[in-house]
């Protein structure tokens, strides 16, 4: 597999997507919403009862808030691919640009990887923007109120660095399979959203469990990685020249 070939496809897709205002808005909107919404709500709620809490209680509540904030962050990479991948794959179908693309000396795997990366990178970028917003708000509050930086902690790092990318890959691959079955962007987004929903619930349960112990967190990461590899082979089966030209309608 020649990664530079995949990167050419990724760059083209990113360039195409950057010109689509709806994709742009969702990439900006979701991280701002999810990154800021929970910390701001938490701070308002806690500020109203701050006088009645001891320092230890306040610290415990603040720590719990970082765990919940990291759970919110996983929603971004699990949900956004249903939006982005639909443009990457169904967009090609609509523009009927897959045939000339498949006629180039590029392997199916290189094309698939390039297109998956084009969905993965902006989603992870949005996730990290959300994480930065969330961390800034919580840290700014915790440092001024209780004199400590809450983030990063071990579970936050684990969630953002390992679990979120794995969840994103899973969602991208699921959406590749969805995209092969539909032929308009709205249907892809709706079906992709529908597929993402149980995925999001599963991932949220996994992330919540991971926060119980480090061992559980590692186990969740391994399960996600195995699911990623399995779904990659399934999506690779769907993304084959023959299949695309004769069955992708």
């Amino acid at each position: 597999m020649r990664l530079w070939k995949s990167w050419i496809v990724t760059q083209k897709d990113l360039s195409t997507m950057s010109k689509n205002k709806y994709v742009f808005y969702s990439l900006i909107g979701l991280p701002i919403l999810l990154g800021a919404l929970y910390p701001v709500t938490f701070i308002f709620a806690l500020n109203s009862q701050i006088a009645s809490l001891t320092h230890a209680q306040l610290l415990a509540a603040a720590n719990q808030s970082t765990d919940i904030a990291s759970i919110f962050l996983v929603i971004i990479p699990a949900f956004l691919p249903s939006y982005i991948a639909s443009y990457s794959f169904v967009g090609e179908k609509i523009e009927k640009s897959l045939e000339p693309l498949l006629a180039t000396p590029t392997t199916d795997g290189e094309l698939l990887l390039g297109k998956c990366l084009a969905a993965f990178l902006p989603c992870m970028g949005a996730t990290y923007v959300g994480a930065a917003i969330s961390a800034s708000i919580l840290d700014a509050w915790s440092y001024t109120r209780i004199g400590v930086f809450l983030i990063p902690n071990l579970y936050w790092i684990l969630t953002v660095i390992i679990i979120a990318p794995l969840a994103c890959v899973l969602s991208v691959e699921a959406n590749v399979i969805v995209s092969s079955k539909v032929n308009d962007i709205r249907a892809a987004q709706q079906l992709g959203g529908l597929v993402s929903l149980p995925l999001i619930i599963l991932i949220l349960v996994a992330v919540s469990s991971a926060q119980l112990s480090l061992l559980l967190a590692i186990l969740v990461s391994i399960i996600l990685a195995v699911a990623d590899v399995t779904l990659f082979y399934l999506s690779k089966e769907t993304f084959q020249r023959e299949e695309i030209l004769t069955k992708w309608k």
Partner: protein
Amino acid sequence: MIDAENLTRKFGSLTAVENVSLHVNEGEVFGFLGPNGAGKTTTIRMLCCLIGKTSGEARIGNFSVDNEQDCLEIRKIVGLLPENVGLYENLSAYKNLDFYGKLYEVPAQKRQENIERLLRLLGIWERREDVVGTFSKGTKQKIAIARALIHEPKVLFLDEPTANLDPEAAKTVRDFVLELKKEKRTIFLNTHNLDEAERLCDRIAILKTKLVAVDSPKNLEHSLYNRRTIIHLEAVSDAMVAAVKELGMVKNLRVTDSKLILDIDNPEKDNPEVIRTIVKAGGNIQYVTEMRSTLEDVYLKLIREASAQ
């Protein structure tokens, strides 16, 4: 350059292409005619390694469509203009071509040169930074042709290159194909346009799932009916008709208004003798023309025969 032997493709119980054998020489413009659903696009897709074959063999140059590694080599030497142009509508003409140039592994400097040369040749260099979505259908088709040529392929597959184009745009595309012909590229032209096929192609194949006929347009036209010579006269006399009838080479003679319509097997050889006889018999010849069956006549007859089988 292109060889196919008993190439067959089935989709479930449907046979799209059956036992197609053909050979296209290097530098030849080869027309592929057939009704909708005849298997033309499927054949092109098999030859370009886009879909597999059910049976038979095919080679482009020295590479077999059977082998995965050979298929990558085939894609390097082949340019494809598919039926749908499939350009990226919100990228500029230049970026569309640059993207494909990179995928075809054309070095940066050569890529820039080729893009400029092709866009200038097709008259769209000044609009290179405009997004493709703003172009007319004809201009998009030109960009798609430039895309198929960005890596200077030895073999070019053109699937309906002038379909849905206005006459002016269609002429530009046809003229461009003639330019490519001068460059000695092998061109496989899939078309419904019989006039276009006749003007551009060295040889033509007619397909209706199976290969119905392969020959030059001229030979195909001659194969259907006897060659006829029409002699336009000031007036036709009985003596003149009797004199011509006596000539052994004239197989059949009809008189319509002031014209003699003659069936002659070898008009190049026999027409001078016929004309001398008419003049000798007092005929005033205004002009002599040839009546031949058109490619359309041949095509329709062959397709009807193939359908009846």
